[in-house]
């Protein structure tokens, strides 16, 4: 091992130094100027995101525990962009609500640590690293969910999250130990060779999937989702629904497609059932939601069901469309959460009925929301359409026409509830509509970035082609 090899971990090292720098800054910045830490953290992270786009070698480290491929590198960049947008969107909230209570730096430290955990999780070359990354990414979120300490509901969300997360990790760990028992190794490469179909591996697979199903909030592991989203601060809910879910879906795909590929006969059936249940139940629950956070929670459960359509294939096409869909989903959902955040922090209103007549008073916010919802619903020409179409194409390529049919029926149902929000904003007028307000510069950047993503990711095809090419090396 030499220092050059450490460059494979460039992203991790850089992020760790940012975390350490922020802790030091917290000590030395005087209390009166604490708010400047927000700008500092944003600046650091923006630099980190930019540096992430520098080319990176592929390879493994620590005897195969840590590995880096172009696809993993790309996915880390996607996560970085997501987190950066998220930081821009939450800067106001931090400044007004959190830093005024002198406990803002921890927010960044916890958030970045969680992201660091995700890096390790998706870069894992064995189950130990994977598990460590999973835990490192989960635990800080519990603290983040409880961040609005003056609200009981926030603490409740944190407790619910940590209890469910602990259970899920325990179950996943049991699955991993069974995998170790049958294959004699925890290294992905070795497990992939040694594993064979028998009842014990099937059990291990089911337990492992249950643990990760919790992270992606698949039905029936979704019960925590709505309550936690509702109670947690909006940016934390947003983080959970886009970054955390995206990373978990990605690593699940890598493990299923490379390590557990011999068991495809088992897990494709499981995925089929989970996909149908997740799409359908997520949609049905979303129909009746009034609170925007709960609404987006159930909508994101339904979206997770669509992600499974790429997972079920086990092919390169499935991998490429999944990564592409997740990237688009991150932008779309961040846009939706961003608008909810903007309105909530100015007015404290979070219900769909509060949005009535919003277009007449705040046209730009309404348009961003409309684009985001169209993208989530999959309506051209915004990116979500392409993401969904390609996912369905991937599933159909393996002959899952019935599943695609169920999925498109669900798309139509989901269109109904997305249109409910548009109905409130555009079709209705209300004497007490939320009055016009100006957004801060950071919020504007955060929203415009998502809109650019939503508009360009679909129509501009080279991005998909790039992902397609990278994913060919996966299998």
């Amino acid at each position, binding site marked *: 091992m030499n220092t050059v090899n450490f460059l494979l971990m460039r992203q991790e090292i850089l992020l760790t130094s940012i975390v350490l720098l922020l802790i030091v800054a917290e000590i030395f910045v005087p209390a009166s100027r604490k708010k400047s830490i927000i700008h500092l953290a944003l600046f650091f992270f923006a630099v980190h995101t930019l540096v992430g786009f520098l080319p990176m070698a592929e390879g493994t480290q620590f005897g195969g525990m840590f590995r880096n491929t172009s696809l993993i590198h790309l996915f880390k960049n996607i996560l970085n962009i997501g987190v950066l947008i998220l930081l821009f969107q939450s800067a106001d909230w931090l400044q007004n609500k959190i830093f005024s209570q002198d406990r803002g730096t921890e927010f960044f430290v916890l958030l970045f640590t969680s992201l660091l955990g995700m890096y390790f999780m998706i870069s894992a070359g064995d189950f130990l690293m994977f598990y460590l990354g999973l835990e490192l990414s989960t635990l800080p979120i519990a603290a983040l969910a409880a961040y609005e300490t003056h609200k009981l509901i926030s603490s409740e969300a944190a407790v619910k999250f940590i209890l469910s997360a602990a259970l899920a990790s325990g179950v996943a760990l049991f699955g991993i130990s069974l995998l170790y028992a049958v294959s004699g190794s925890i290294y992905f490469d070795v497990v992939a060779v040694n594993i064979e179909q028998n009842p014990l591996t099937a059990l291990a697979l089911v337990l492992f999937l249950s643990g990760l199903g919790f992270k992606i909030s698949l039905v029936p592991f979704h019960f925590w989702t709505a309550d936690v989203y509702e109670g947690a601060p909006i940016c934390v809910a947003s983080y959970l629904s886009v970054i955390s879910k995206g990373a978990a879906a990605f690593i699940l795909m890598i493990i299923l497609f490379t390590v557990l590929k011999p068991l495809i006969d088992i897990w494709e059936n499981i995925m089929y059932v989970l996909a149908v249940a997740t799409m359908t139940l997520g949609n049905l629950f979303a129909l009746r939601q009034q609170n925007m956070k709960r609404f987006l929670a159930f909508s994101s459960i339904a979206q997770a069901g669509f992600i499974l359509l790429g997972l079920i294939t086990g092919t390169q096409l499935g991998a*490429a469309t999944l990564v592409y869909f997740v990237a688009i989903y991150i932008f779309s959902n961040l846009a939706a959460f961003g608008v909810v955040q903007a309105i909530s922090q100015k007015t404290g209103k979070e219900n769909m009925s509060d949005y009535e007549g919003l277009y007449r008073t705040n046209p730009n916010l309404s348009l961003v929301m409309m684009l985001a919802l*169209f993208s989530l619903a999959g*309506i*051209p*020409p915004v990116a979500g*359409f392409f993401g969904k*179409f*390609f996912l*369905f*194409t991937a599933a*159909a*390529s393996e002959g899952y*026409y019935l599943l*695609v*049919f169920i999925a*498109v*029926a669900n*798309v*139509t149902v989901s*269109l*109904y509830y997305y*249109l409910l929000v*548009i*109905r409130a904003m*555009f*079709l209705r007028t209300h004497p007490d509509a939320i009055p016009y307000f100006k957004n801060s510069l950071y919020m504007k950047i955060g929203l415009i970035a998502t809109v650019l993503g939503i508009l360009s990711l679909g129509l501009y*095809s080279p991005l*998909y*082609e790039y992902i*397609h090419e990278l994913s060919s090396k996966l299998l």
Partner: protein
Amino acid sequence: MDILTLFVALPALTILALIFAKDLRQSRTIAMVGSLIQLGMALNLLFAYFRERAINKEVFVFVKDVVWFESFNIHYSIGVDAISVVLILLTSIVVLAGVFISWKMPELPKEFFISLVVLSAGVYGFFISTDLFTMFVFYELAVIPMYLLIGIWGSGPREYAAMKLTLMLMGASAVLLVGILGIYFNSNADGGALTFNLLQIAEVNIPFEAQKLFFPLTFIGFAVIGALFPFHTWSPDGHASAPTAVSMLHAGVLMKLGGYGVFRVALFLLPEGALHWSWFFIILSAIGVIYGAFAAIKQTDLKYINAYSSVSHLGMVLFALLMLNKTAWNGAILQSLSHGFMTALFFALIGMIYGRTHTRDVTKLGGLLKVIPFISVIYVIAGLASLGLPGFSGFVAEMNIFVGAFQHDNLFYRIATIVSVSAIVVTAVYILRVVGMMLMGPVKNDAYLQLEKATWFERTGILLLLIPIVIIGVAPLWLSNAILDSLTPFLAHLT
């Protein structure tokens, strides 16, 4: 930029200009200029097409092909034949007339015209596409603005109507998506590469089992927007609640996407599936024809009468397409055109009558011929065209359809044809009933004596729509020949 891409690019430019418009005057001027140029381009395309056709015998002319998503073999590929050219012309005329009719849009005018232009861009794009994927993109792009157009500017139960329409049409497009994917993954049946290109797929022998499975999905996916019975229920509610220009565009243009898609995709790519299933869909469309006509008799709301009449007339289009022969297909295309102009004209007139009398209930109206003669006379003319009087476009179209349908000597086809033909009589009943109740007789309400005469922009809009009806009715041969010429490759593929 090539002659066809301009049809999508110009609406995009119009939208950009509209974003900077400040008030009603600016918005309507921009929209009018944009649609005028569009009409000029469509006329130019018509002549350019005839010139090009004389030297170019390909199925589609003005073709262009740009790779879009390479790994899926998705291309932005475009091209037109006579059928798409005339439908593009129809669209540009109806859009322009729609802009004139919306000259005094009181609420959110900028947004209204933007949505209208987005819709028209989707329609143009749909008609020029020769690639299933781009076709599908444009189809959805054309449908989704309807939600806002009906929901924001509509009347009556507008939220309900907008939601119903959007969900039914989007649900249909979801079914269509499965059909398209099915076609795509069978497009390598002869060992070639997977493709979305219409002409390339047409050369492949898709296995019969797949055709049997995917034909109904594709057919229903398109036919719902063509008001196929029993999936037509979105249409009366949608039309009744929509503002005038939107009803015009919707019935006049958007519903034509159904027949066009059935013809271009379902029948062209899955001919064996079509033969296998045609009996079933012939029954459905014949029911639609007769049911729409009878339902129109019972209605008292002018818009509902016209909406059910559309169900009946467009049922004839689907019926004729399923006859799978040259004469009937020619009739189907002519009927699409004729119905497009006629129904847009009807809705424009209904909008004017409603704008003046504030009611659409025929039992409350009466004697309008005495007070607003221009509007009333045009209404009578449109009515006569609609019931198929010789000299107007409706006659030419229906004549072709039923002559074509009767060419089948099978008893089933004969019965279906006779049933559908009888709808013409019923059409005469409901048209003449409205004319009698609404236009003739004494003026029922004194307030109607002071109704405003038709304004210049209203007259312009009306004449724009009336002229083509007369042209097609009096001199159909050039049009018919051009369409028959374009039908040849499709017929050849069928046998």
